[in-house]
């Protein structure tokens, strides 16, 4: 089959239609701005779809067609914001906030654990109030038992809290 040197292979109609639909769904209708080019019935949308179709027929690639439109209408015509310097904050912002939030949560958790531990150790080492100059052995062991049981109760509560948070 003879071909002239500059002939472009014609894309078959079916794949051109598919490409047109796919591209139209990635482009914004500038008149009805919350609709894609595929969905909108505005006159301009019809014109732009025709223009995209004729560019497809001319053999332009998807990215070439998008560039063509961005050159005329700016980044806003792309439904998905491009990944470039002025959109980093837009794309990465939510993840940054999530990491930030997670770090704060961890700090808060550690601080509350530390204060719970120090409270129980303070109780264990605190000298019980004595009535006499020399604390009776019985009285001392009583207060120590009291401190130890409080300590145990606190640790048990801490464990329960940790299990809840996990």
């Amino acid at each position: 089959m003879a071909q002239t040197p500059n002939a472009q292979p014609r894309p078959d109609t079916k794949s051109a239609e598919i490409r047109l639909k796919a591209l139209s769904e990635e482009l914004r209708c500038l008149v009805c701005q919350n609709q894609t080019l595929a969905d909108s019935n505005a006159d301009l949308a019809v014109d732009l779809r025709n223009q995209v179709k004729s560019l497809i027929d001319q053999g332009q690639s998807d990215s070439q067609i998008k560039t063509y439109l961005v050159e005329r209408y700016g980044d806003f015509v792309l439904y998905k914001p491009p990944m470039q310097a002025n959109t980093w904050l837009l794309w990465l912002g939510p993840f940054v906030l999530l990491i930030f939030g997670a770090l704060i949560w961890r700090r808060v958790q550690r601080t509350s654990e530390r204060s719970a531990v120090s409270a129980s150790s303070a109780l264990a080492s605190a000298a019980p109030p004595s009535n006499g100059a020399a604390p009776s052995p019985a009285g001392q062991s009583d207060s120590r038992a009291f401190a130890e049981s409080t300590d145990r109760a606190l640790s048990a509560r801490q464990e329960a809290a940790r299990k809840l948070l996990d």
Partner: protein
Amino acid sequence: MMRTIKFLIPLAIFLAIGWFLLLGLDRNPRDIPSPLVGKPAPDFSLPVLADLSRTWTPAEMKGQVWLLNVWGSWCTACQVEHPLLLELAAKKTVPIVGLAWKDMPDNSKAWLKRFGDPYLLSVMDFNGKVAIDYGVYGAPETFLIDKQGVIRFKQVGPVTPEVISGKLLPLVAQLKAAP
């Protein structure tokens, strides 16, 4: 002291977010900044309304500062700005060329007869291809083009007295004074 600072951080974040949202309220999503400002005005060759057998290209305006006004007989907002264009044309400060977008010659002619014709001439963009080249997405839109054929300013929507006296005329004077 530390507790006060920790208490204030969420408040500060809230105020910062609120500030950005407030700024956002002022923005108009219909006003899309044109990527063509600072670039050469796209070339074209279109039939002239007054004589459809004749064609016209923007190259004919090289050496002049001029306005390209996109309009249509179907466009109601164009009626709003039209008196201002007539005033501007009467002052003879800057020539205005009309781009009749997706219009029928009979309708365009009738409209100009009814409302007045401020244009040096009007050209017909029947299929809207030239409008797409200029990034037009609504009417009216007005482009200010300098002596080298570079777009210097774009007005989306009707021109207002503030835009004319505040932005357009000073820029026209500046561009006229330039070589």
